[in-house]
């Protein structure tokens, strides 16, 4: 047993001693680095280690939580004591019971040794390559605001008074840039990014080229005419919407009447073209792990299949409320957060037609490459959205002039219902959680410009 598991076990004991009836501890230790590059130089180089523990304590059906960074015996005891104290303040909830152990299958492939092997100088060279590629891609790319490279390797351990015990390691890394292009009297920005388990898996040239292409494509953009028309969503944009839909399929929101999908289980919500699943074990997904934030096995859950809403996502608490089983969907943002229901990796099944055919099927419409204001422009309770967007016009089935300063508006249920086709080329996107999606053709969406 590793030191981290020992610490977690000690925290559980301490919470019981402090008066908790049941307790669970989640500990993590992480080493990471970040390189920022600008103008051919390394702007900053960060080396980081962090570790901490979060303790959940139950007193009957009352739950409390505490976390901290002090992993000494006294520190852990203090955190555990605060968790028990917090539980005493909460109200009784008959469904708030600790998870019971379930068989967890190992999940290899979550760690890439290149994270450990690469030196910071190599990481800096990768970031510089991204910048150089973007600048060389097109003379209209005048600068790169910043290239960021970051990686981390994490170990997670969980232990509980009900006998749960588990541990795993995972690594991940990403690089992105914001390219600046100028032309026709205006300045445009373009994002390029790549994700992998380790730096060996990144393609710096592709990342730089993407940022340059996105920025230059927007030069000379104008407002589209307001209308309802076919819209093609780029995978980065589709991912944001898929993330919102996945979030609204969490049982917590559904049970508390704060999801547009409440009461819709089994309904035909989408065309056959759309299949959506949550898969916490796909090795390519950055949210994959052998077990979830409360130690239960991650798994695959089909959410939308054959156009029908097949399932919601559950953690132990929401599952108890409905008398069903957890789908292994308790997520945490590290040791600082209580586990709560949320998707792991959301995967939209790719369709049969490629991007050119998707545009051809759209005919006359808009290709949306960026959205802004998702935080304020989407109501997760009602599903109604109105967000800022930019992209390209689609004319006679082909990409035409760039468009900016418009909004797209609708609601998540209607959006699902009007997905006409999914493209054949999927991509992992870190927006909206961890999402793999192809471009999507929406039959009709309200575009508001001039």
């Amino acid at each position: 047993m590793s030191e981290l598991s020992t610490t977690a076990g000690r925290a559980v004991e301490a919470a019981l001693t402090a008066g908790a009836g049941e307790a669970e501890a989640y500990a993590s230790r992480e080493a990471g680095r970040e390189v920022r590059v600008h103008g051919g130089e390394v702007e900053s180089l960060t080396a980081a280690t962090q570790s901490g523990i979060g303790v959940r304590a139950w007193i009957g059906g009352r739950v409390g939580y505490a976390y901290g960074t002090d992993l000494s015996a006294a520190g852990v005891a203090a955190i555990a004591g605060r968790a028990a104290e917090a539980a005493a303040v909460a109200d009784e909830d008959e469904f708030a019971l600790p998870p019971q152990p379930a068989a967890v299958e190992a999940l290899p492939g979550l760690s890439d040794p290149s994270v450990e092997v690469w030196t910071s100088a190599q990481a800096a060279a990768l970031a510089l390559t991204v910048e150089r590629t973007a600048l060389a891609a097109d003379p209209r790319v005048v600068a790169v605001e910043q290239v960021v490279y970051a990686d981390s390797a994490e170990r997670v351990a969980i232990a509980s008074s009900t006998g749960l015990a588990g541990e795993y390691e995972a690594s991940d890394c990403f690089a992105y840039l914001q390219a600046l292009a100028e032309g026709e009297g205006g300045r445009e920005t373009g994002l390029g990014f790549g994700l992998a388990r380790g730096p060996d898996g990144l393609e710096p040239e592709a990342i730089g080229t993407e940022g340059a292409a996105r920025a230059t494509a927007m030069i000379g953009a104008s407002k589209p005419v307001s209308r309802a028309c076919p819209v093609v969503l780029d995978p980065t944009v589709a991912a944001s919407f898929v993330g919102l839909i996945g979030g609204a399929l969490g049982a917590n929101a559904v049970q508390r009447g704060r999801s547009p999908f409440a009461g819709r289980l089994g309904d035909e919500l989408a065309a056959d073209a759309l299949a959506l699943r949550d898969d916490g074990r796909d090795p390519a997904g950055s949210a994959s792990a052998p077990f979830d934030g409360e130690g239960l096995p991650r798994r695959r859950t089909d959410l939308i299949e054959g156009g029908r809403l097949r399932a919601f996502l559950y953690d132990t608490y929401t599952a108890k409320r409905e008398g069903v089983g957890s789908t292994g969907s308790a997520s945490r943002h590290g040791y600082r957060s209580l586990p709560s229901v949320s998707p792991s990796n959301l995967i939209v099944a790719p369709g049969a037609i490629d991007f050119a055919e998707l545009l051809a099927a759209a005919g006359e419409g808009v290709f949306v490459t960026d959205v802004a204001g998702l935080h304020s422009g989407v109501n997760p309770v009602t599903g109604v959205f109105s967000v800022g967007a930019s992209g390209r016009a689609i004319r006679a089935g082909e990409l035409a002039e760039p468009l900016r300063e418009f909004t797209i508006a609708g609601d998540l249920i209607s959006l699902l219902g009007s997905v006409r086709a999914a493209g054949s080329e999927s991509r992992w996107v870190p927006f909206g959680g961890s999402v793999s999606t192809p471009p999507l053709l929406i039959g009709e969406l309200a575009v508001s410009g001039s």
Partner: protein
Amino acid sequence: MSELIDPAVAERVLARALANGGRFAEVFAERRQGFSMSIDESRIEAVQSGAEEGAGVRVVAGGTTYFAHVDGLDPADLERAAAEAASALRGERREPRALEAVASTPLPIERRPEEVPAARKAELLRELDERARGQGGEIAQFTSSYAEARRQVTVANSDGLLSGDDRTRTRIGAQAVARRGDAVETGAETLGAHRGFELLEDDPGEIAEQAARKALTLLDAGPAPSGSMPVVVGGGFGGVLFHEMTGHGLEADHVQKGASVYAGKLGAQVAQPLLNAYDDGRLPSEWGSDAIDDEGVPTQKTQVIEAGRLTAYLYDRLTAERDGVAPTGNGRRESFRHLPIPRMTNTYIAPGESTAEEMIAELDQGFYAVSFGGGQVDPATGDFVFGVSEGYLIEAGKVTRPCRGATLIGNCLEALMAIDAVGDDFFM
């Protein structure tokens, strides 16, 4: 105030950081304590507390910053972080200056939230729940959260500065869901300040009623109009609009990289002469106020727009050094795990001479945005979006009906120039 790290330890850490050269070194130590809880389905839940401490050490050499951070404040760990930050450097050892403590006066906290019993905070949330549900049977759901956070910081640098701050912020939020048949609407309100529990001693239940009323109002709302039209922005939210729309473009890191539409525009007329705007980190009790910034620079009031002319950018130490100016006390870090960057404190537009009624009366057709749910800007292009959480249609000089789901969109250069009246009722 007491330091989180002993000055002698800080000096050793700074010396270790400059062991391989570099022109500037700094250690930033922080203790963070937080407590929060919420009420949902009229039940107190998610009661949680956190305690973290750690430090970040940076060394600046040439155009590069080397940074390492550790959890905990053990002197040996701090020295290890300093060695880690310096490890990529190959220069001559530099000696940091002897530390000299600079006094700073943290914002006063009348009633320390951690000394208020948790049961009192739970009682407060129950009161909010009752007040919101008392607004009528159409209030189907109500959730509210309480959060307190204390950040104690100590900064020491190789120029000999030793300073610190002790910051406590308290906040409550309320979200209501109203339902009538198939129609569902939401309303939200928050109250937060750089204050202690005294913030919640007046009438905190008021925000619960406001959130509920917003949701109820929207049940009667129609769709938002589309197209370009004049907009009247409600008091308090003009500052929010300015913060998102223009403020980010004044942060010197964006400006120096050419990633701001305001780069090269110092002294230029960017708004009508009636507009004056400030960034002020010294406003008593305000959310964005602190005694010092996260680099130990005292916070200040900076006029960024004077009679429509752009008069200043917002700086941290490094960006100020690059422009050969004094830092403006805007060096902010998310935590000891982050490098400082120049970010706004409290931004606001100075009050003018018009009233909202006058502005509305002048419009044949327009939109009255009373409050925003949030916004976003790309400082490089100036394109912005704002979600309106409470908005009304203006027709023939009168507010006629509420609108749901409105989003304001535009470009900040044009929008700022198009501000042609400023209201006289000032609040943050």
